[in-house]
């Protein structure tokens, strides 16, 4: 995977550095510009409410997420965490309040969601499934190349011509990740993407998520029921209870984080006790 990453660096830069200095400068500027473009968007949520019928799921969420932050949202089932994510992703209509993404004009391709189910098209080869993620650029000439690059990032480029049905659960989820990444999103929302995977696959997927997040710098919002996963990956953990942000915990642990370290474990313990005390009240 390391080598795959290295080879995916733009070759133009290497070539031009050797030959023309001005060209090299142009190339570097291009890259910087792209860096700016692909970096994350900040997210501001004010007074967000959502009900389904008589059931008020979100009762006023106020939240600011700085650009490029990795936020985990935890809470017991039915607390509204998935609804919050679906609202951020624009999959549900907002009842009251607002969600804004800084001052920039956003494209649909800037916000992507990854679900618990891979949701791959069973009748499309792996590569075409990734191309779906390009949105309106699907028919552009470099669609193949971009999809291949995204597949390389998740280490599955050798499966490009396979049907999804022959892949394992973890591989399918990696294809779904490549599909979400291929349009270089600026906000990536994860709805328990690792929930259906076995323990070992989960750990390697968590590493993969962390790596692509660090490489691409998007704003990541991860909904999970696994507090250990939340503290291992996120800069900040939000505990949602009864439709509100009950706790907002910063995870100031240096990366790369060592799984099972005492620091993470104590943090996990305190968040779990928040969750359980909320459970006792009801």
């Amino acid at each position, binding site marked *: 995977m390391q080598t795959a990453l290295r080879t995916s660096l733009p070759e133009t830069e290497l070539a031009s550095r050797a030959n023309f200095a001005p060209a090299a400068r142009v190339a570097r500027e291009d890259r910087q510009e792209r860096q700016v473009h692909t970096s994350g968007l900040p997210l501001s949520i004010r007074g967000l409410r959502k009900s389904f019928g008589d059931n008020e799921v979100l009762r006023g969420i106020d939240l600011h997420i700085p650009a490029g932050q990795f936020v985990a949202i935890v809470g017991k089932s039915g607390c509204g965490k998935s609804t919050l994510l679906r609202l951020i992703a624009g999959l549900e209509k907002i009842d009251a309040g607002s969600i804004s993404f800084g001052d920039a004009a956003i494209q649909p391709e800037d916000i992507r969601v990854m679900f618990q189910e891979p*949701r791959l098209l069973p009748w499309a080869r792996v590569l075409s499934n990734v191309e*779906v993620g390009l949105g309106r650029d699907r028919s552009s000439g470099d669609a193949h190349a971009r999809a291949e690059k995204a597949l390389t990032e998740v280490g599955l480029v050798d499966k490009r011509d396979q049907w999804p049905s022959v892949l394992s659960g973890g591989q399918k989820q990696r294809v779904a990740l490549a599909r979400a990444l291929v349009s270089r999103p600026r906000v990536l929302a994860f709805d328990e993407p690792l929930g259906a995977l076995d323990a070992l696959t989960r750990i390697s997927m968590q590493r993969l998520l962390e790596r692509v997040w660090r490489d691409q710098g998007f704003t990541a919002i991860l909904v999970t029921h696994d507090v250990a996963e939340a503290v291992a990956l996120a800069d900040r953990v939000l505990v949602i209870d009864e439709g509100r942000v009950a706790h907002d915990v910063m995870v100031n642990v240096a990366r790369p984080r060592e799984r099972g370290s005492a620091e993470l474990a104590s943090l996990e313990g305190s968040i779990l006790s928040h969750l359980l005390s909320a459970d006792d009240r009801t």
Partner: protein
Amino acid sequence: MSLIDSVSLPRNFRLPRVDGLVQWIVPLAIIAIWQVASVTGFVPVRVLPAPSDVALAGWKLLLSGELIRNIWVSFWRASIGFLIGGSIGFAFGLANGLSQLSAKLTDTTLQMVRNVPHLALIPLVILWFGIDESAKLFLVALGVFFPIYLNTLHGIRTVDPQLIEMGRIYGMSDGELFRRVIFPGALPSIFVGIRFALGIMWLTLIVAETIAASSGLGYMAMQAREFMLIDVVVLSILIYALLGKLADSASRVLERLTLSWHPAFQKR
């Protein structure tokens, strides 16, 4: 490793060959027993002629060109009727699967018509069209319409809503969503409809040709009955069986080609 190779290789080798033959063992055995029963006089020739006599009758009709002509006429009627009825059924299935309004408008009517046995319309159809080609085409089209309509509708309605949501998130237009998600998702069900429809197609055609026609396989069988040519009657029935099998195989080949992504159709 070498042990595994030596065990699995012959198995992989033998399976498809045996598979191709196995399905013909029973039909061939029936014909063999039938031949023996006829030759020994166990089954009187007046009841059922020997397979060899049927083959001889077939050979004679083949030489006179009558057989080919009748098969061709029936085949033509079947295909045109299938195309007309199938396309209309497919169109209604699409419309009612995709549009609530269209479903509300037409589904009840179609369900009522569906419950009328279409062969019960034969007297009416003869009054309308005479014993013309259009009468047969109408009946075949009507018979084929419903299985294709119902299965297309069912296929479209049961496409995984999560995939449709995924398509919308990734900015697919309505046309693209249909082409990339809905239609491929409905295809397995549409094929079930096609295979049902092929069976109904032959049934309808044979009944229609037996009652009102001046050419075709059904007509050939009825003529033979008039002249007590029991071997030709049996020949016609066997040809129906073969044509039915042929239609089924054709749809299977089509299924394999278009559903190669489906785990059930991947080579085992």
